[in-house]
């Protein structure tokens, strides 16, 4: 396979899933025309009747996916921007995440909700949000957030095959920015597994989405100064791969957690608590989080957005401090 961007990997996964399983179908706003990011381009024509435009109604996009999945189909619902998924919070929290639990497995929902998230695109308040903190908090709902095209491909296929509802987060800034060879099997195949993408003895960084790439860039810069970082690509936020997270923390004893989402109550808080609780005796420095500030994310002007967003420079500075401690 050639090199694919993230959006191409997503489209390829949808294409291959639609081809492989008649139960798979796509629904969402503007999906028939290809979607606003071209994720579903060409699919409506290729799979007539199985790529369905919905009205502008996020709650029912998700609710209808629930019904169809309960019936036995494998719906892949698209929410146009993660910022708009909140209208469907009820359907995800009260219904989808509980469906299997409240029937003790008699009923289950093999459904996927995929949505573009994240900042760095001049998207302002409602086209830039991170949502993983809210949804990774719901037992019963899986939350996947890849960083590399190969993983986007394999994990989206895995999500579609999963008998559980999966929230599949696609970082929009990386859609066309990140390229990688995608063979269909060179990505992570299993939901619930994180990957150590870089090894280093001096500190450990955790990230996902765009920030993972920023961490790798920072790590390269730091290597030139003799500071070697371990970098963990979380890949799945729920269920969390505690084993890999803790092993990576124990390796260096110095932890830097990076996410775009605002600091307080962000997913990093969970990682920090987990590491503090289960790797306490291996810690050689206080656990550090580098996140967006506690302001409604993200303000629009480029100066304001740049102030908000963590980036490789800020990450390297924090890592340097941590390494020195």
């Amino acid at each position, binding site marked *: 396979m050639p090199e694919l961007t993230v959006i191409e990997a997503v489209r390829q996964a949808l294409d291959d899933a639609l081809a492989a399983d008649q139960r798979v179908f796509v629904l969402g706003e503007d999906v028939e025309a290809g979607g606003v990011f071209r994720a579903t381009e060409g699919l409506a024509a290729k799979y007539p009747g199985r790529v369905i435009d919905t009205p502008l109604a996020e709650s029912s996009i998700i609710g209808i996916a629930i019904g169809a999945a309960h019936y036995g189909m494998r719906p892949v619902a698209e929410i146009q921007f993660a910022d708009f998924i909140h209208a469907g919070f009820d359907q995800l929290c009260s219904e989808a995440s509980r469906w299997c639990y409240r029937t003790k497995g008699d009923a289950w929902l093999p459904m996927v909700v995929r949505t573009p998230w994240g900042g760095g695109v001049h998207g302002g308040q409602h086209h830039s949000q991170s949502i993983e903190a809210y949804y990774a908090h719901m037992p019963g709902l899986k939350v996947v957030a890849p960083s590399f095209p190969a993983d986007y491909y394999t994990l989206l296929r895995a999500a579609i095959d999963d008998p559980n509802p999966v929230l599949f987060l696609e970082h929009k800034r990386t859609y066309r920015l990140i390229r990688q060879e995608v063979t269909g099997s060179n990505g992570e195949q299993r939901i619930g597994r994180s990957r150590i993408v870089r090894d280093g003895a001096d500190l450990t960084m955790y990230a996902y989405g765009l920030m993972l790439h920023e961490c790798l860039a920072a790590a390269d810069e730091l290597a030139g100064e003799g500071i070697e970082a371990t970098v963990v690509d979380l890949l799945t936020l729920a269920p969390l791969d505690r084993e890999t997270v803790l092993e990576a923390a124990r390796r260096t004893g110095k932890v830097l957690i990076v996410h775009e989402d605002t600091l307080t109550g962000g997913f990093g808080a969970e990682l920090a608590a987990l590491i503090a609780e289960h790797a306490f005796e291996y810690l050689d420095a206080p656990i550090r989080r580098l996140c967006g500030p506690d302001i409604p994310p993200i303000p629009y002007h480029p100066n304001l957005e*740049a*102030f908000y967003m963590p980036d490789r420079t800020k990450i390297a500075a924090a890592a340097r401090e941590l390494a020195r401690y």
Partner: protein
Amino acid sequence: MATVVMPQLGESVTEGTVIRWYKRPGDRVELDEPLCEIETEKVNVELPSPYAGTMGEIFVSEGETVPVGRPLCEIVEAEVAAAPGGPPRSRARAPSPAAERALTGTRADAKASSGTEGRRFYSPAVLRLAALHGVDLDEVPGTGIGGRVTRKDVEAFLARRESAPAAAEAPSAPGARETVAREAEYEVVPLTPTRRTIGDRLSRAVREIPQAWTMVEADVTELVRLREQTAARLGRRLTLLPFFARAVCRALREHPNLNARFEEGELRRYRDVNLGIAVAAPSGLVVPVLRRAQELSLEGLARALDELVERARAGKLRLGEVEGGTITVNNTGAFGSVASRPILNPPQVAIVTLERVVRRPVAVGDDAIAIRAMVNLCLTFDHRAVDGHEAGAFLATLRSLLEAPTAA
């Protein structure tokens, strides 16, 4: 000359293709007039000119794809140019410290608790490793902030310990009785890192520096009286140390060569007197530095010295406070010493002591004897920088200042 670049057209667009140029070099261009047609993955648009003037050089040909931000062409702006073209993209300035604190709450706290105050802090990782491998952490030098022992320090210590097998593993088993006897002969006193460090530095000083020593005797009867008066007036305890420190500072004004450091191959004579005070702290000798001591009044000196010494004894010195001294004084008289031969505190070139004040009969006038308060002032100096003549002159000045002290 203004440059037109490939614009960012759409949230995730990273490049664009010039389909067609509407203008050729030399053409007149009005503000907002279409310059060219651009195609991206998302949209096709015409690019309205941000400038008015004459079309200059074109950098990107029709059909060529370039990344966002790449220069497309130049426009020679007309004299009566309108508002500067294009949305200014100012770099975000570095955030203010307050803003930086707002960014992540954890940073400030990390600094505060980093144990920079000299207190020994061991992280969980360090404690675990030490327990696991039987390491006495007092023996481990710290390279973290403020001298903190880090996990890597312990690991390095372990590596060294392994590679240097215990010297004198007792020659193969002597009789049990002998072993017992040997054990009773001595007990091992572990050297703390502080003591090791001091030892290293002093050894080096003695090895490498030609140190000479001289001493004078001073009659401080008046000084003692002045001390009592001043103490009463100020309502506080006073030792002779602040008086001595003040005199040293004043003497150095006349003999500045003794207020110097050998640094990076240069002899640097300092303007300020950064006065090192030798203090016996529980962990060993420590020499905190009182910066710009020459500016302080007697009372100021007394207060500053008290505070510094107290903190030194409590182990609460800050990192900068033990560095940068230009001369060291030692109140050796406090131990009862009447003469001592101090070792230099490199890279300083002089160290002077105030010995114990002893009331002795001395000759006064031509043939009378009086009981006077006498004290010895000892000076060790770096003979590379200072010779005996200067050293003697300094001590002579010091003595006269102490013998005829002025009020605070």
